[in-house]
């Protein structure tokens, strides 16, 4: 059992060495930790996304746990059927995990996800958020932050990033949390909590992508930490409708975060200031929600 953060480096390997993940892949760090926390007692449904590439080409797989590869839009509906079938067969202690990218969650998989959340299906839905469609070559998604370069936003994205975790929480599901590979203790606590609960649980993990965000491959974890410390990626949970901000860092200037990534290199100082205000007002909105007590039923 993973009791402390350092247990996340020990124990059996479920993501086997020699995967197809790019060097410095944030998603693979998240996947490795999740499997160690669930001790491999899970069946994964993985729609089209980088992870379905990371596993490696047929007939080999780097994943030493059961995986069902599914069409892009259908992670949550497939996992729904799987969870129902397992429970009908009396199998109670195998987790069904839908593991999808941000495109598969915020955008194309949203309808199936909403349906599964509404029915309170017994699954852990994990979105690893690398803030664009990476597998197909860096196109913008509903998770891409404002002003970020992608191949389909060559001068920077004009729109906001969806408040996806709150959208899921508004369904009134038992547990919703954001997590980051930059904060392993908070990550472990949330996954362990989700593991012990039943019904629909949603975890959204910040997973920096050196290939898509254009930063040096050794900076993945540093950038994940900075995202939390600059209020770009607030760490919070919504448990039975009550929101709690789980990490309240001393705020660092947004420049520390954006200056490491070439997807933001076109930003002027005024752009960075505007973006900083945006993230700060989102943070303040979260604080107001936290102060309100139960916000979703």
């Amino acid at each position, binding site marked *: 059992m993973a009791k402390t*953060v*350092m247990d*996340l*480096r020990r124990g059996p*390997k479920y*993501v*086997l*060495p*020699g*995967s*197809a*993940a790019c*060097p*410095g*892949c*944030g998603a*693979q*760090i998240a996947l*490795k930790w999740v499997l160690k926390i669930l001790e491999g007692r899970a069946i994964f449904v993985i729609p089209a996304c980088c992870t379905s590439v990371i*596993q*490696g*080409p*047929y*007939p*080999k*797989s*780097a*994943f*030493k746990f059961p995986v069902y590869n599914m069409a892009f839009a259908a992670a949550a509906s497939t996992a729904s059927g799987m969870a129902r079938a397992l429970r009908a067969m009396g199998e109670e202690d195998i987790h069904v995990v839908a593991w999808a990218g941000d495109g598969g969650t915020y955008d194309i998989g949203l309808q199936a996800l909403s349906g599964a959340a509404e029915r309170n299906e017994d699954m852990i839905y994990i979105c690893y958020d690398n803030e664009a469609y990476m597998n197909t070559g860096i196109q913008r998604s509903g998770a891409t932050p404002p002003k970020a370069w992608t191949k389909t936003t060559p001068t920077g994205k004009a729109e906001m990033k969806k408040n996806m975790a709150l959208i899921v929480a508004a369904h009134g599901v038992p547990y919703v949390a954001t997590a980051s*590979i930059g904060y*392993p203790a908070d990550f472990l606590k949330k996954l362990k909590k989700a593991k012990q609960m039943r019904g629909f649980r949603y975890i959204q993990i910040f997973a920096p992508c050196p290939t898509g965000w254009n930063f*040096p*491959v*050794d*900076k*993945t*974890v*540093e950038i994940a930490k900075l995202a939390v410390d600059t209020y770009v990626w607030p760490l919070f949970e919504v448990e039975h409708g009550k929101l709690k901000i789980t990490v309240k860092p001393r705020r660092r200037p947004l420049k520390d975060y954006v200056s490491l990534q070439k997807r933001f290199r076109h930003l002027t100082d005024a752009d960075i200031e505007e973006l900083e205000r945006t993230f700060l007002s989102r943070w303040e909105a979260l604080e107001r929600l936290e102060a309100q007590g139960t916000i979703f039923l």
Partner: protein
Amino acid sequence: MPSDIVIPVSNPAEAAAGQTGLWRVFKPVIDKGKCVRCWVCALYCMEDVIDEGPDGYPVVDYEFCKGCGICANECPTKAIDMVPEVRE
């Protein structure tokens, strides 16, 4: 299910994408004099290729290490150097 439907099944194996150590441009080298065995390197190792050696210090499996250097960047005592890979 009709018997003529074949569902392709992949089987777990190391090196699913080949000997990924060959991707490496820089190689992490651990200085045991500086290492305090805190295991932060292994915690963050994306490829899960940093394990405990017989002497209790971390060892890197160079067959698969992709050389990303996250271990060196995160090491609190700066005990890991990224040195250019030399191949014959």
